[in-house]
């Protein structure tokens, strides 16, 4: 069943569709689709990142967006200091990973849901600190980011340029995740998620592997944050509120924990449907967008509690 979706053929079709999107949007005179595509892509990256922490290892992280913010702000500050953009991106990833590592070392010993509160707390700490450190981040007034148009030779529209960059990042992310998923590390993560005590007893270095998963997530968050900052050319603390962390958690859980295709579909729906609703609903109904969104969330969870495209392992467990 989901085997079909995971087949090589389907993957190539989807990649082709993704690359064709800008052309289709141009033909349909609906460039908005490219913008939505880019946003969806960023959330795919975030979802893939959180998937390591939450999907594979089962660590309940409610403050993931803080690292998106750290990535975005590091890039903005670096660009302001006239660091060239590619270096700024790498710097942002490094700083984000480092921050995540520090946090992980401090808190990973906490039990499941305490971790949730602590990560939520850290998310708020990060946002409020960014908001208060006017001398570095310009506080609530936000920071402008120098323009960067790396693919100007391909397309004039910056939306298209960044869309393609994001697609490339997502593809790289998927490939990297696949590799790790099928490795010894990936299997160890699942063992930890299912039964930490048993995993430890079988010799898995639980603490180190948890930290690894936790930290790897930050690579994706830092990259996504950089691309976001460079695309929007403006960052402000208001973009990194708690709600966004909740959205990413929903994407991973709704999509199917530990399932790459699930996370991608989850991002497509949860990050794609609200902006599409803005375009399609008539004036009287646009105020209902989030009411519908909440209903969708509840209904999809009720009817597919294992996730939209759960990993085959999980499917087997839950339906046995």
């Amino acid at each position, binding site marked *: 069943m989901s085997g079909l979706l995971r087949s090589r053929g389907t993957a190539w079709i989807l990649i082709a569709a993704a690359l064709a999107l800008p052309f289709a949007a141009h033909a349909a005179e609906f460039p908005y689709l490219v913008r939505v595509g880019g946003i969806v892509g960023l959330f795919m990256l975030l979802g893939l990142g959180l998937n390591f922490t939450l999907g594979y290892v089962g660590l309940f992280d409610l403050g993931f967006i803080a690292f998106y913010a750290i990535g975005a702000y590091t890039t903005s500050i670096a660009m302001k200091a006239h660091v060239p953009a590619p270096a700024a991106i790498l710097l942002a990833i490094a700083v984000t990973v480092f921050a995540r590592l520090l946090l992980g070392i401090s808190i990973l010993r906490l039990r499941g849901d305490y971790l949730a509160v602590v990560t939520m707390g*850290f998310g708020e700490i990060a946002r*409020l600190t960014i*908001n*208060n450190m006017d001398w570095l981040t310009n506080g609530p007034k936000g920071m402008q980011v120098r323009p960067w148009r790396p693919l100007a030779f391909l397309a004039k529209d910056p939306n298209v340029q960044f869309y393609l960059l994001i697609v490339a990042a997502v593809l790289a992310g998927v490939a990297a995740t696949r590799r790790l998923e099928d490795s010894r590390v990936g299997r160890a993560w699942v063992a930890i998620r299912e039964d930490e005590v048993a995993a430890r007893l079988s010799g898995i270095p639980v603490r180190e592997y948890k930290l690894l998963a936790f930290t790897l997530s930050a690579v994706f968050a830092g990259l996504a944050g950089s691309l976001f900052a460079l695309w929007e050319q403006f960052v402000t603390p208001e973009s990194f509120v708690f709600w966004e962390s909740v959205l990413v958690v*929903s994407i991973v859980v*709704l999509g199917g924990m530990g399932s790459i295709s699930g996370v991608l579909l989850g991002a497509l729906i949860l990050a794609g449907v609200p902006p599409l609703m803005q375009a399609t609903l008539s004036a009287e109904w646009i105020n209902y967008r989030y*009411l519908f969104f909440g209903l969708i969330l509840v209904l999809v969870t009720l009817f597919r*509690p294992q996730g939209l495209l759960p990993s085959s392992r999980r499917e087997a467990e839950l339906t046995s």
Partner: protein
Amino acid sequence: MVLQQLVNALTLGAIYSLIALGYTLVYGILAMINFAHSEVLMLGAFAALGLATILPAAFGTGALGLGGMFVVSMLGAGLVNVIVERFAYRPLRHISRLAPLISAIGVSIVLQNAVFLWLSTQSLSFPQPVEIKQIPLGGGASVSSLQLVILGAALALMALLHFWVEKTKMGKAMRACADDITTAGLMGINADVVIAVTFFVGGALGGAAGVLYGMNYGSIKYNLGFLPGAKAFTAAVLGGIGNIRGAVLGGFILGGLEVLASGYIPNGAQWRDVIAFTVLILVLLVRPSGLLGEKLAEKV
């Protein structure tokens, strides 16, 4: 000023404690963070406002007004919580631990938007059934009759809860389920009923907190639940999730911390939440199960 700040802290803490109790009761029995609890407390406030608007003569003022508002809000909020549990969480309970959470998030969004779209998009002023008199305490400090009512009501409800959980049969059943729901089932306790009752009680406490909140700040709005909800949940964890005394302790400590940050640290007001969360993280690092320890089913 210390006395005044103490009064401020106690009032704030009392409200946080009531909300925290709602979270902790549900968590203790199901290991689930009821994300919709913040909207339940908001609905309790709106229910009370509704009563005072429809029957202002009878329920707008005085002791009857106050009592009526509590009854309506607690019943209403409790009922909402039970209905939500029955339809949005129960089907998911046995399937996965995180699915009910996503459902709760969805419910929270639906409830908040429903109130925005169908009740009011703006702040509505909340009735004051209590005549506000300032009672001087000496040294320039004073406590208002309203603050006394809030403290009194909160403490009374907590005492009632304590009595109920310790001394009644249903309370015992709740504690049994919180300890080990499977064995409780084997002992003949109907877990579904106990869970429903727990949600009712938790919701009712949230509703009462909503009324106190409305009275204390004078107005209510569709999004009033989010911030106090998040903070109260933090307080519940600080005290030890699932632990009733912990929730109360956590609520008052959080109230105290916030007052300390705003009142005594220069420029502290804007760092208030950072301080609160930092203290939380530090406490949990030293005592990973919260200040008073947790009371949860052991999942070995």
